């Protein structure tokens, strides 16, 4: 029934896994020394925030069925995270908000 099983896509799965792991392990295995460059340290501190922000902000709005629910859920998530809620609480709250908006749209129109 399934198109892609271990026998048909085995090579692809191995390629995927190996590539991902190589990316992660290369710097870990090579750099044993601590770098003392202040600019570099600063840069490394701000990386996660920038990458995560760049991954999140335009995409989050389009990640649900419609733009309205996406925007509502994003606003809910922003407010909840601003109030320092837990990861899961924020995720559940936003998904609930998106589902609610979609449901209301079906009911009202």
């Amino acid at each position: 029934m399934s198109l892609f099983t271990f026998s048909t896509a085995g090579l692809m799965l191995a390629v995927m896994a190996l590539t991902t792991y190589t990316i992660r392990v290369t710097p870990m295995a090579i750099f044993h020394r601590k770098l003392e460059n202040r600019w570099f340290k600063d840069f490394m501190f701000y990386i996660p925030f920038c990458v995560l922000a760049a991954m999140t902000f335009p995409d989050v709005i389009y990640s649900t069925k419609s733009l309205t629910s996406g925007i509502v859920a994003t606003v809910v998530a922003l407010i909840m995270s601003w109030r320092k809620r837990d990861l899961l609480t924020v995720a559940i709250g936003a998904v609930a908000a998106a589902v609610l908006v979609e449901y209301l749209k079906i009911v009202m129109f």
Partner: protein
Amino acid sequence: MGERTKKIKTVIRRQNSRRKATLRALKWRRDKFNRRLREQVNDLMIVRHLPKFLKPKKRSQTQEQPKSEYVRGLLLGKSIGLGYVPVSFTFGLVAVQMGFDPWVAVFISLTNLASAGQFAGIRMIAGGAPAIELAMTTLVVNIRYFLMSLSLTQKIDSKLPTYKRCIMAFGVTDEIFALAAMEKEDVSFPFFGGLMTCPIVGWTLGTVLGAFAAELMPPLVQACMGIALYCMFIAIIVPPSRSNKKIFYSIVIASAFRAYSNMCLASIRYHKTAVVGHSLSQLLPQQLSAPHSSRPKR
């Protein structure tokens, strides 16, 4: 100097030693009293406000106190593990809908542990792309893990052996890295091991659930699950930006740059180019905004 003076001296010596003994006894009594008083005050101050089941039993109190690094990591990673479940659930759903065997989907989750990379990967496999192209796409989409891993090497002990580093490298994901980066001190091996346990279990378990129970979910909820991943990102980056203005600015700059580059790339049709451009736009903003935003304020 006769015998009389000798007698007097011995008497004085005895008296002195007696005095010292009594003084010592008094001191001991005073200290004991103080100790007991302090204990009683401590009990009154702290224990009174605790709920019943948390009240320490006096003997076992010292045994329970030291919490191992592994347990600390485990507790910290618990919420990430739970947060991963809905996301990997979505992955399971999508993979099975695209024609993947459920166990293949679970295998991908277990070996890759990367959300965006996995989604891109199954899209490439389903599209019948050659292995080299798949490797290139995975590399470009996951290149941020290289930077995260590099950043993490600055926070681990330089004497840590390579095999332990190789185990740690497997757990470098966005959220785990974010939590490890927030640690004030160096990240130890057991702590990181604890930190990555729950997310790996949650990620795999979510995929299992999503792949096998795809048809049980109402379609409305299925459509809205995709936002869970982004909400976790928001929940990670927003709280620290309250206290650190530089983080706030770098978030704003990065997302604005990404939105701008998105508009420019929207007209490109080839999905390959779009994937490259997409990942480049993820890479560029951090290089532009980080040095700019970390400039000290005066």
